[in-house]
């Protein structure tokens, strides 16, 4: 309270030079009376975290077999059918015995200390781009499959809140509390040498050898890009064509958020977990060059499937039903209006 009084006094004095050296925002006995009581339903909706001691773990169960089906549908597009991962997405399974080596493979089996972390993370953040869409039983099943893919359980295993705390991950004991204060700080707090500290110095490694640094555009490049941009802007706009309405395209952009973590569309779009979608409208199936399509997709390409409105709508509404055994980890849109909007967006953004 002294600080508050001090500040008031300075204001009364009209002092222009008074400076509070410690302008800590003051506490108030009993609080400021701000905010409102959180309702139990609100806390239940957001308080979904799970701890290693089981706090927060809901009732439920799921087995390896169910988990495998869910995994193929929801997880395999990024993490691979067996948790081996595609591209640079996280590897989930294997890696045992690699932590000492030159290329540690830190998976749930080889590295993660607690199973509760897997449950919590799958539940809160997966499938990527469609977070918190799995039921509790589905999360149990996927976690059971992750355990199976790491050779921690047999294929008839069922995980539930009843047996959850019986599980110990193999690497739990290999974590320890930060000990830099004891181990490093004394070592790195010694007096320094300023003159003639070493006899000679030689270069032992060069970044240029690896050549992995992204190109930095030079001033010349930037100027050239600017000129091109100016030229593009001054070109006459092509006559308007009859196409999707801007409102529909905007709605499609919004709906496309569900697709964005795997698919790119528009200028510079590249293949990611899914193929880039430029020019997909009215193209023959499996249109993206350089993307490794599933055998199911290769087949319909051979059959000459063309992505017209009807085919795209049917596929977006029910990817698995329309094209069995394809790898897209998306269950389908609920509303046909979203399909129409997404198609409009793909046409507008990715060309035809």
């Amino acid at each position, binding site marked *: 309270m002294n600080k508050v009084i001090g500040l008031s006094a300075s204001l009364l004095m009209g002092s222009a030079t008074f400076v509070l050296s410690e*302008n800590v*925002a003051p*506490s108030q006995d009993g*609080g400021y009376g*701000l*905010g*409102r*009581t959180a309702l139990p339903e*609100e*806390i239940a909706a*957001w*308080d979904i*975290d*799970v*701890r290693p001691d089981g*706090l927060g773990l809901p009732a439920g169960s799921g087995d390896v077999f169910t988990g495998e089906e869910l995994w193929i549908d929801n997880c395999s597009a*990024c993490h691979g059918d067996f948790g081996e991962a595609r591209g*640079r997405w996280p590897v989930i399974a294997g890696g045992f015995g690699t932590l*000492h080596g*030159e290329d540690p493979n*830190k998976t*749930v089996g080889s*590295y*993660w*200390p607690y199973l*509760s*972390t897997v449950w*919590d*993370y799958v539940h809160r*953040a997966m499938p*990527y*781009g469609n*977070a918190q869409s799995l039921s509790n039983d589905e999360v149990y099943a996927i976690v059971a499959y992750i355990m199976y893919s790491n050779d921690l359980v047999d294929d008839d295993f069922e995980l539930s809140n009843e047996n959850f705390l019986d599980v110990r991950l193999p690497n739990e004991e*290999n*974590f320890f509390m*930060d000990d*830099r204060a004891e181990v*490093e700080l004394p*070592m*790195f*707090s010694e007096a*320094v*040498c*300023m*003159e*003639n500290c070493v006899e000679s*110095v030689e*270069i032992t490694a*060069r*970044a240029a050898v690896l050549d*992995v640094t*992204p190109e*930095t*555009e030079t*001033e010349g490049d*930037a100027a050239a890009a*600017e000129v091109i941009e100016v030229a593009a802007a001054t070109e006459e706009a092509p006559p308007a064509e009859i196409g999707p309405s801007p409102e529909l395209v905007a709605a499609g952009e919004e709906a496309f958020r569900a697709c964005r*973590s795997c698919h790119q569309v528009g200028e510079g779009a590249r293949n*990611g*977990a899914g193929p880039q979608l430029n020019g997909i409208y009215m193209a023959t199936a499996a249109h993206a060059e350089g993307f490794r399509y599933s055998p199911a997709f290769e087949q319909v390409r051979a059959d000459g499937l063309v992505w017209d409105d009807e085919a795209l709508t049917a596929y977006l509404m029910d990817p698995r039903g329309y094209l069995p055994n394809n790898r897209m980890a998306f269950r389908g849109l609920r509303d046909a209006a979203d399909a129409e909007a997404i198609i409009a967006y793909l046409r507008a953004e990715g060309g035809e």
Partner: protein
Amino acid sequence: MAKDDGFTPSRRQFLKGAAVTGGTLAVGKVYAQAAPDPLITEMQPWTQYLGPGVDAAPYGMPSPHEARVVRRNVPWLTADSVSSVNFTPLHELDGIITPNGLCFERHHGGVAEIAPEDHRLMINGLVDNPLVFTMQDIMRFPRENRIYFLECAANSGMEWRGAQLNGCQFTHGMIHNVVYTGVPLRLLLEEAGVKTNGAWILPEGADASGMTRSIPMEKALDDCLVAFKMNGEALRPEQGYPLRLVVPGWEGNMWVKWLRRIEVGDQPWHHREETSKYTDLLENGQARRFTWEMDAKSVITNPSPQAPITHGPGPTVLTGVAWSGRGTIPRVDVTLDGGINWHQARMSGPSLDKSMHRFYFEFDWDGRPLLLQSRAHDSTGYVQPTKEMLRHVRGENSIYHNNGIQTWAVDENGNAENVEVG
């Protein structure tokens, strides 16, 4: 379009010519101008014609001549840009404050796009009164203004096995330093009333990764802020708009963005970003957990691979930045010869706790190759170690907390390269 009247190329040619001339003359001499400088003798368009009026850009942008000053990413580092990182262009900046638009980004599920009126902050768990705050509620608490650096634990993480990326933007650019305006977390926790067994908090983000980290109560009550402004204006969306946690001196991942909930508990949660990630694997296969504090570190930003010496021999400004998660930086040493002889740099600008510091070392370059290094001392007496000293303790697999001394090799043309020395 005044700049497109044929003027720009001639100016470039002039500068180029000047650099070559400067390089051939004796060090320390002012070189003679052979012909009058047309920039002086000829009328320039910006002097003759009127420029844009006020409100040409209601939100002002940098000069188009600064177009190269941008964040950049390293595409091969991550699977997808929605869970990735880009880097602050440290070599283009001076002073200690990072402009908002250049603060590096690290997202785990893309940028959450939230209208402030739709945002809520909940405090629950081991508290007397679980509470919900709107942004308006938050803005009615007393505020503080603090300048802190935020460094990603993985900054320089690509350099553990040797020199890899050519540019301090890429080797050291996962850091920014801004002034935050926010409410001490202590006041919000006091409002809810922490129970006596409340020893940890779990801040949680509203983004699609549902970011969570465990933070000990002692830190939460000490200097953490719940911030809504950076450098005077609202947080940028990519920095957590409308609300983020500020955890001074500790690794950036803990500064939860789009902060929507704080749970109080009696134990840590051991969530994904404090077990599978942000733990430091050592050579013996064991891993350090809860390595929160950022060790003292520095880097020379100029000259550096993206910022070569272009003026030839003579007076040269060497500058860089230094910081420590344990205090201030009273001193930085620099060497021009790879560590044979060291010189104390000149510190400039405010020296604040857990904030970035700026140092300079002005020298007369003789045109011979240089091996530049900087070595930070923090207010606890800690001295930034060499990479070899770090590897001796930690091996090469720890990814995080690489604060080893950086070396740039400058050749006789002034070009700089990321190297290691021994």
